[in-house]
């Protein structure tokens, strides 16, 4: 009995002292990022792509990662995938000039001439923050205004100062604007998710059947929205309003900046 106990203790000590091998140092997201960047700089784009993808698999999401992945795919000649990741990056870093320039360039490289999905320029000017701010920024601004508004309301219970009224009105206006905008953006991205064709050629059909009528053919990089996903097929809609069914694998769906679950 004593021998058995001594053996068990020894085993425990050995296990405790043995360094962990299940998570190698290279699996650290930051280390992966450095290594991926290095591979990219050296021109090893496929290696870089794999490393960036592994970071994504570890649950890390940010604008820089998607932007770099977009660049990597562009170097690999995958314009559609590049646009998909640039659009995903835009959900986090909408005001990045580098991103905007690369996205513009990638769009010029695609085969199909498809009008931009953007709304009217006048509306864009009036509701400028809708496109100039990311959803997380809107939510953070809303939360900050919410906190300041109610703090000012509490302060006003005890001190009736004019500046508190100004703070209340200002934060109410900004907070409501941000709240409504964020909600609109969220609903829009839930109902109509931006998507990109990521294969050289995709046949858009009238139904979820390879034998159904061919409606039109799209090429790598064509942008639109996914209105529905069902049984490995997606209902893809173009800015012109034309729509049809595509196989799920032919479409890259832009990643939203939030986790719903």
């Amino acid at each position, binding site marked *: 009995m004593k021998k058995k106990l001594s053996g068990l203790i020894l085993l425990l000590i050995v296990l405790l002292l043995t360094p962990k091998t299940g998570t190698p140092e290279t699996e650290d997201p930051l280390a992966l*990022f450095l290594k991926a*960047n290095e591979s990219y700089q050296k021109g090893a784009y496929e290696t870089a792509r794999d490393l960036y993808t592994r970071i994504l698999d570890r649950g890390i999401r*940010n604008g820089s990662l998607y*932007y770099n992945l977009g*660049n990597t795919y562009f170097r690999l000649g995958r314009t559609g995938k590049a646009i998909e990741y640039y659009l995903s990056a835009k959900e986090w870093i909408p005001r990045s000039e580098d991103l905007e*320039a690369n996205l513009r*360039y990638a769009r010029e490289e695609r085969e199909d001439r498809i009008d931009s999905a953007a709304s009217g320029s006048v509306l864009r000017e009036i509701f400028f923050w809708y496109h100039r701010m990311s959803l997380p920024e809107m*939510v953070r601004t809303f939360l900050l205004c*919410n906190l300041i508004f109610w703090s000012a309301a509490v302060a006003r219970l005890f001190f009736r100062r004019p500046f508190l009224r100004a703070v209340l009105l200002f934060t109410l206006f900004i907070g409501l604007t941000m709240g409504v905008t964020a909600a609109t953006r969220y609903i829009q991205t839930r109902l109509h998710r931006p998507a990109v064709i990521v294969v050289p050629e995709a046949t858009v059909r009238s139904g979820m059947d390879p034998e159904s009528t061919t409606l039109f053919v799209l090429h790598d990089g064509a942008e639109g929205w996914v209105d529905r996903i069902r049984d490995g097929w997606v209902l893809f809609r173009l800015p012109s309003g034309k729509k049809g069914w595509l196989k799920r694998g032919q479409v890259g769906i832009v990643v939203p900046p*939030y986790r719903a679950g």
Partner: protein
Amino acid sequence: MGHLFALIVSMFLLYRTVEAREITVTAGVDRNRVTTEDMVLLTITVSGSRKAPEPELPDLPDFEITSRGSSSRVQIINGAYSSQVDYNYLLQPKKTGLLTIGPATIRYKGKTYQTDPITLRVEETAEIETGQRELFITTKVDTSSPYVGQQVVYTFRFFRRVRVGNASLEKLDFDGLQVEDLGKERTYTTVRNGIRYQVTEFRKVLYPVHAGPLTLPAATLKCDVPYGRPRPYDIFTFGTERSRTKLLRSDPITLQVRPLPEEGKPDGFSGLVGSFSLIAQLGKEEIEEGESTTLTMTVMGTGDLTGAPRPEIAGIEHFKTYDDQPTLTTEPRRDRILSRKVFKTALVPTEPGTLTIPGVSIRFFNPEAGQYQKREAGPFTLKVRPAAEKEEINLTGVASAPPSRKQVKVVGRDILPIVTDLNTFKDRSFSLTSPGLWALVFAPPLCFLIIFLVKRERDRRFTDIGYARRKKAWIEFERGIKKARGLLRQGDSRKLHAHLARTVRAYLGAKMNLTGEAQTPIELKEALADRLSDPALPEEIYTLLQELEYRRFAPGEEVFHEGESDLARVKQICAKVEKKL
């Protein structure tokens, strides 16, 4: 109702009676001895009907007539009803002497009514010194024999030493003249022949267009001059002053416009009249072949420069010229209008070297000197470098010309580099189901609500004593019961019952915001009965308090043994009150 009907009927009958009566027409003037400057107010009054037509005036060739409208009034004096309409006309005599205003006529219901003629004595404006008149106007020009195109300054002055109202000047019609305002209208005070006048003055500059005699029409100014005191009981004028309308006229002015002399007249003379100077300036004195320089020529002086031609650049060679649109500005300066016209011409040399731009000149007629004059500026020298010279200079480094700018030419395209900044590398997504997110949304309003309610409660307790007492009543009561238990343990029956009675009274007093302990059992019973719908509970309280009072003063072992049950009963009854009140 019957009275009202009778009143309406009688009013109608009265109205019909009045309408059935004949009318009378009279005419009158406000005065019958006037001067040619005065205006006479003719009033034709039609009495007896408001429906009579407007009177027809007779021919009045000796007067200028202006209608001043009509006014009507109705009077009921001692039950007698009368209506009257006044038609007013202003008459301006055209000549002196005895003038007659003939009868005015009205045709009404088949009958013709006429006014009596009125005779007026019209005299020349008093032959007295102008300086002694109350108000008058003057007009004058600075020259009566100008040349065609010469500036003539016309001055209008309105002198007055009495108050006037509603002054209006008839529009001056200067036919055959080009007119410009010279400054703004001004009002000042002056002394003339020892009499102080207030003067309103304005000036205009006239440019005669044609030669020959030219008559400037008389200026006519109409104004109201008050006289006498206001009628104190005249409710229609509201106590305003009575006034007479005056019409003031100046004498017409005749100009003898002279043509421009033929002697010394240059060939192709532009017709520029006045006194002018010429300034010319070259923008750059040294340029490169192919570049341009600007020659700016400014003509300024007194006279009309509207149609002034561009100064001549005589004999210019080796240049291409491009004329710019001239700019003209005018400004009043003392008793003249100063004009300034700027001409710009771009000069582009056609060959390198030192080029000479000959002088520029203008010709005009100077009316003050009575002769044609010429003004000159220049010549100018311009050094033109050959276009190739620049490169040589640059090579030798002797001088540096500004580098030529080229548009950026795109020779290749590529995407911009990846992001390597490690500060940006962390997970930035957020979860919509995160408790922290929803806590940040709802916690602040919740905190506000709690603080708000607490503050409201505190404020109410602070300001509403009754409320504060009600809220504390039960706490105080429980404290009293606790003390009673101590007294029960001590076995002091008197003290126990006295304390219980006091506790109950204090509780009820606080609960109903009464002066608690001072209340008698019957008063508490009545107060409770007012507040409770259940009549049994006040009665129960009354009985309880009576018994406690009794036991307080009834010593004995038996009474003490009932202390326990009395305590329980007090608690039970007060709990009921707490629940219902």
